[in-house]
């Protein structure tokens, strides 16, 4: 009886949607198995952390107030009065940081396995854009509690944007909502953080995921060249999916542990007329750029040190995003060491400068 009921329920939808194709597609989907297979999971992990961000973000929205007078107090309220408010906020902060980390790992693994090569250029570019957006999420979200550290970090961060020739000044005013970092800046960042950026991110994510489904997992070059018989693979459904879910469970546990054992601090409320305290730092994923700016002399030739730094980083980011288009050798099927050296240099540079930044 009960079974019958379900069957009819299913059939009603099947009549209208034709699940057949989807089931066929899922049944035929295979994931290559090789020594680098582990990296396949990091895209999924990033996605999972993003889902956590959406859920906890919406929960925080129920109590958060995005204004100069109320922002700090509303988070204090969430953390002390609202049941499990401390947990939700702590998870949101931790998961945000882990998401950026997972996205970086995912990006580098794709880079080193050359998975960006034809036909996956669009997947790579949308992925890079999402990585930049994730950093934007971090930068705007950092200010929302309106505490002292975030206030001055935002002042410095937006002021750096302002030194870019020609477009810098209008951009600074656009970001800050005026000349200075004020409540107007908070309103804007709040709007970017919960409306503008999620909308753009969702579109990019949609394209990214559809492409991954349509094109399947990229095979590393060595694997691709193997004779068909030696290629190992596993069905996506259920084998890979279950492993994916296992990873998600592990990540969920890590997030929960971090959020409970190291609750995210709120700090001191920002006072725009007080002096900056010692220890102003950006979020860790901006640290390497921030630290670089300290080492560039105040003036290099005709450039201000900061201007030069920003131009260099922008150029590097652009080149990195466009790698599928200029890496001609991989395209022709030749081996290229240069890509590896460049990638290793980038990783070493980022780690080194980040450590230096925290040692000071």
């Amino acid at each position, binding site marked *: 009886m009960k079974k019958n009921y379900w069957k009819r329920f299913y059939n009603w939808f099947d009549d209208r949607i034709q699940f057949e194709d989807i089931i066929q597609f899922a049944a035929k989907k295979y994931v290559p198995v090789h020594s680098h297979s582990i990296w396949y999971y990091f895209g999924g992990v990033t996605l999972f952390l993003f889902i956590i961000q959406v859920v906890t973000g919406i929960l925080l929205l129920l109590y958060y107030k995005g204004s100069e007078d109320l922002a700090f107090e509303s988070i204090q309220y969430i953390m002390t009065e609202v049941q499990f408010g401390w947990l939700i906020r702590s998870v949101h902060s931790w998961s945000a940081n882990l998401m950026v980390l997972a996205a970086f790992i995912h990006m580098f693994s794709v880079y080193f396995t050359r998975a960006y090569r034809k036909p996956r250029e669009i997947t790579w570019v949308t992925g890079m854009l999402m990585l930049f957006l994730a950093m934007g999420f971090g930068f705007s979200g950092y200010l929302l509690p309106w505490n002292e550290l975030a206030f001055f970090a935002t*002042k410095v961060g937006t002021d750096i944007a302002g030194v870019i020739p020609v477009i810098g000044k209008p951009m600074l005013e656009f970001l*800050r909502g005026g000349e200075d970092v004020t409540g107007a800046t908070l309103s804007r960042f709040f709007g970017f953080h919960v409306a503008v950026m999620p909308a753009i991110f969702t579109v990019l994510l949609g394209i990214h995921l559809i492409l991954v489904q349509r094109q399947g997992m990229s095979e590393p070059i060595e694997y691709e060249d193997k004779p068909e018989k030696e290629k190992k693979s596993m069905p996506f459904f259920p084998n890979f999916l279950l492993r994916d879910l296992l990873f998600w469970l592990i990540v969920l546990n890590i997030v929960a542990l971090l959020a409970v054992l190291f609750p995210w601090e709120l700090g001191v409320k920002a006072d725009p*007329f007080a002096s900056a305290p010692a220890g102003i730092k950006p979020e860790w994923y901006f640290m390497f750029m921030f630290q670089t700016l300290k080492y560039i002399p105040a003036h290099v030739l005709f450039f201000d040190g900061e201007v030069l730094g920003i131009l260099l980083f922008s150029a590097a980011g652009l080149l990195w995003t466009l790698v599928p288009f200029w890496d001609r050798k991989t395209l022709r099927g030749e081996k290229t060491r240069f890509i590896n050296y460049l990638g290793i240099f980038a990783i070493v540079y980022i780690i080194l400068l980040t450590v230096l930044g925290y040692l000071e």
Partner: protein
Amino acid sequence: MEVDKNKRNFLKYVLGGSLTALAAMIFYPIVEYLKPPKTKSAEVSSVKIGKVNEIPNDSSLMFRFGTKPGILVRTQNGEFRAFEATCTHLDCTVQFKQEMGVIWCACHNGKFDLHGRNISGPPPRPLTPYKVNIQGEDIFVSKI
């Protein structure tokens, strides 16, 4: 045939022109809306910030000047000096460091002497000074 082509071109321009005009009509207000209006309250010319006997020698006081933070320093020999407290490097707010006898910026360890001159660290320019006026017991600060 000729006529047709002309007609088509004409239509193309009319259509293209109207679409451009439509786009401009939609985006112009949006772009203008995004520019924050200039704040009027910023026009402060002078503020009273305290009394002489409230500020001992070799100490300082933070005050607000319109929308900007300011810093008043009283030197060891009792002289008053006031500056915009905004660091000329990347916009942090400076503080008086008594032990070092300098005005210090915590963000990147920039230092200014008590005349506001940038003496070490990344700040590229001196602090902007204010004029200090003592009237009786009251300290007034104004733009130069």
